[in-house]
């Protein structure tokens, strides 16, 4: 019984911690796939 209680407590604490950061932050930038970028924005004209 006691072990089950402790397990539940740990689970609740983990969930509470996870909930502290409402919007998750990123340690590194996420690079967006080049092919999905519209308007040919990443096009580098010749000679530049």
């Amino acid at each position, binding site marked *: 019984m006691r072990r089950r209680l402790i397990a539940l407590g740990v689970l609740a604490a983990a969930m509470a911690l996870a909930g502290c950061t409402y*919007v998750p932050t990123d340690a590194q930038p996420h690079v*967006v796939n080049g092919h999905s970028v519209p308007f040919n924005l*990443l096009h580098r004209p010749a000679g530049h």
Partner: protein
Amino acid sequence: VPRRRSLRLRLTLAFGFSAAFLSVLFAALAYVGVRHILVTDRQSTDLRQAYVNAALVRSAVGAGTPAMGQLVASLDAATSATSLVELRGAWYAAHVSLTRAELPAALMRAAGRDEVARQVLVSAGTPVLFIDVPVPAAHAVYYQLDDLGDLNRTLRTLLLLLAAGALFTTVVGAVGGGWITRRAMAPLEVASLAAERVAGGALDTRIPEDARDREVAALATSFNTMVEQLVERLRRDARFAGDVSHELRSPLTTLATSVEVMRQSREQLSPEGRAAFDLLATDVGTFQVLVEDLLEIARSDAGASMMHLEPVDFVELVHQCVRSAQRRHQLAAVPVVVEAGLDAARVRVDRRRFERVMTNLLDNAARYGGGATAIRLSRAGDDVVVDVDDAGPGVDPRDAHRVFDRFFRGTVAHDRGAARGTGLGLALVADHVAHFGGHVELLASPEGGARFRISLPALEEDR
């Protein structure tokens, strides 16, 4: 076996914990899922917006529009995000406070590699989504910053709602579990109460067998069958003891008669023969009393149906029984002390058996207690009480609760020199008094001897 907490409490707790575990689990899953959807949705919206704005910057630079500051201001006005443009080493922003120092270095490095990237970082206590869109054709980089504080507030509200829901579910689970457990355990409590009543002597106790649930009905049937078998067994035992005693009575009467005939020729016997005859006569007498007592106890075991209970005047009854016992058994006279408040007291007893009770108590006092010293009648609450005091040494406290057991003899009675009883006298007293609805107990008399106290319920109308 160490006693654990009550089953009901444990089941209620188990229901509560199960409800808590499941509700917290589902709340957490719902929260994580909704957060993922909201954040992803916001990121793709912001990214689309950043592409459009970057395209506008490229068009403006291509058309040779020099007022980049005005363009950035107009971009900010059209969206909720903030824009920052780097054009050929110069920086343009609508907000004065916004500088390149605000931008994450890793994101700027990605822009330097001509990569579109996004990153969420906490800036001034609030999460901000940074996006860079390089525009190599215009030698520019478009940066967009979106404050996600509103998303944080939405998620906080969602979390509070889910936590409240989980708490509510837990409470409902525990309360519902308690209710279900109480309902489920009710038949068990009924059975336990019935078993207690049976153990207390109420052998007519049965559990109603009209339960709707099959398991409960089966429990009731088994319990009732068990009690019926127990009652049948008791009846059989009592009948056997009665039959044996009855069968023994006739040859014993013949023996006793023969002894009486032989008594007339006792003086003609040798001294050894006389001693043997005296032993024989005494033991035949004891045997007769024992068989009579066994018969009486068998009748008592047969139940209250053999009793002839009738309401009688309490004080008069005791006087009559004491006189009769003294006359029949040649006992010394004992003063009967009647306290006030007993003038009209009536009890419901079987006269013959009550006389037997008084006889046995007086006989017991005469045998082991140096004779009865007083009989006191009094009232105690709803009961009337008869105390029989003796002049003996009292009873060993270790024996006090056993003197009413069948065939129990105290240390004094084991002495061969003392007049021996059958060991059934006090057991009969306890049986008969129980049939009258009262009880008997052994106390210490204030004068130093033993005091046997009989308490009987007084009849309603006399209270």
